[in-house]
């Protein structure tokens, strides 16, 4: 507990310095409202429900898109690693698609599916799938052949062996890929909502900024930042638990 406090104390110091700077009138030059005002605005947003409605929309989109990316991406990566025809067919596509800045797809998915949830889910799915696929692919390719052979010689069929040996062998790299995807999901979600949306955190940030409600805008920005941080922390704790056997 004390350690955690010490670890994050620079954030507390920064907040205090920020408050002091804003109070002394230094913030006005950069449109930087004091944290105390941001907190008041945050409570206001929470009370009138704006934060919850928009947050729920964003989280739904993020979870759906990321969930699809994880399931389909993982299956694709493992199948690519263990079935040559699929690898030959898909490897060039993955190579071409991987470096494409996924934000370029924002107008494309909006054109296809409109301004609602569908376009965001598709965008996040497309943007997050490849890191998951590559993680699963690389992990599965590196499976130790003696583990594969051991399972086979103890009576496991090919599919059974895939599930019992290749999937757990791929897990560390797969989980790493998912962590990248998790961060990407936040970026894509907020960008898409800023540009083409009627709801969501990104949309709220845009509206508040346009209205000049900077206190509230900062409140939403910080909320998103905190959620991103919390998601990553929770994810790391879960990963450590799943991979406890590695030590």
């Amino acid at each position, binding site marked *: 507990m004390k350690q955690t406090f010490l670890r994050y104390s620079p954030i507390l110091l920064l907040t205090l310095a920020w408050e002091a700077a804003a109070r002394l009138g230094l913030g006005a030059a950069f449109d930087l409202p004091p944290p105390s005002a941001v907190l008041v605005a945050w409570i206001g947003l929470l009370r009138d429900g704006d934060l919850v409605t928009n947050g729920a929309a964003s989280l739904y989109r993020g979870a759906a898109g990321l969930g699809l990316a994880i399931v389909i991406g993982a299956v694709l990566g493992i199948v690519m690693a263990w079935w040559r025809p699929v690898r030959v067919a898909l490897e060039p596509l993955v190579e071409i698609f991987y470096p494409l800045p996924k934000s370029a797809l924002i107008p494309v998915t909006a054109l296809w599916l409109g301004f609602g949830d569908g376009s965001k889910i598709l965008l996040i799915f497309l943007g997050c799938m490849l890191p998951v696929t590559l993680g699963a692919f690389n992990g599965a390719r590196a499976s*130790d*052949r003696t583990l594969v052979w051991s*399972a086979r*010689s103890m009576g496991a069929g090919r599919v059974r062996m895939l599930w019992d*040996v290749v999937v757990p062998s791929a*897990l560390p790299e797969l989980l790493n890929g998912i962590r990248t995807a998790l961060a990407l999901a936040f970026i894509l979600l907020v960008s898409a909502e800023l540009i083409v949306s009627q709801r969501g955190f990104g949309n709220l940030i845009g509206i508040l900024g346009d209205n000049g409600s900077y206190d509230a805008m900062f409140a939403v920005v910080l909320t998103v930042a905190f959620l991103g941080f919390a998601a990553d922390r929770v994810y790391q704790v879960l990963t450590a638990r799943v991979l406890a056997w590695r030590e």
Partner: protein
Amino acid sequence: MDAQAPIVIDAVSHTYRPPRGRSVLALDDVSLEVHPREFVALLGPSGCGKSTLLYLIGGFLPVERGRILVDGSPVAGPGPDRGIVFQHFALFPWKTVRANVLYGLERAGLPRGEREARAQSFIDLVGLSGFEDAYPSHLSGGMKQRAAIARTLAVDPKTLLMDEPFGALDAQTRSLMQGELLAIWRRTPKTVIFVTHDVQEAVYLSDRVAVMSARPGRIKTIIDTRFDKSDPHCFKTKTFIDKVDEIWDLVRVEAMKAQEARA
């Protein structure tokens, strides 16, 4: 199944074709018969194809030229009648010792209670009682190999394929494990094919030693090494030392050839 059928290796050749680089003839026209419940060592310099031969018998690599018969029928893939123990243990790192030993029993479809009892008896047999819930990463090399041996024996394969199983262990652990393997083998006689490049180990453990030539691997000679080994000090007897010397002379020539080929 006919328990009396030997393992027949008949004119087997094998070529390795790496994705990049030149293909290599690893085994050239190898023939060998291993009798039921016999302990045979495949001895040769590294790169002579002795492990390849073992993998072919295991069904892990396809037999392209010649044929291998186990229990009268050609090998068509891996199966629980042929258990394998690898040099680097090949334990499932995400499973505990108990779960590793249970794996083959689950695949065999044994009822739960029987599985648990059988796994425990083999864990006890190899002296790992108290480490059932440990992950492999927490065990020493010798303990890992004990766990791997328990896992393989639990399935009760008729044939035990061992790929330099003690090669990664320190000298003391190795000699201890050799003694224990012999003791286990005497209690539950199985056909054992044991790959090694350690002459003493081969003479101590096996009934016959098949000495292989440097690449491409051929069987150069087969030497009978059956004599009384019940005495733990049989290492010091003249019979033992003479056998080791005799085989060393054969192997030395091949090891030198293998080195020249690499240079």
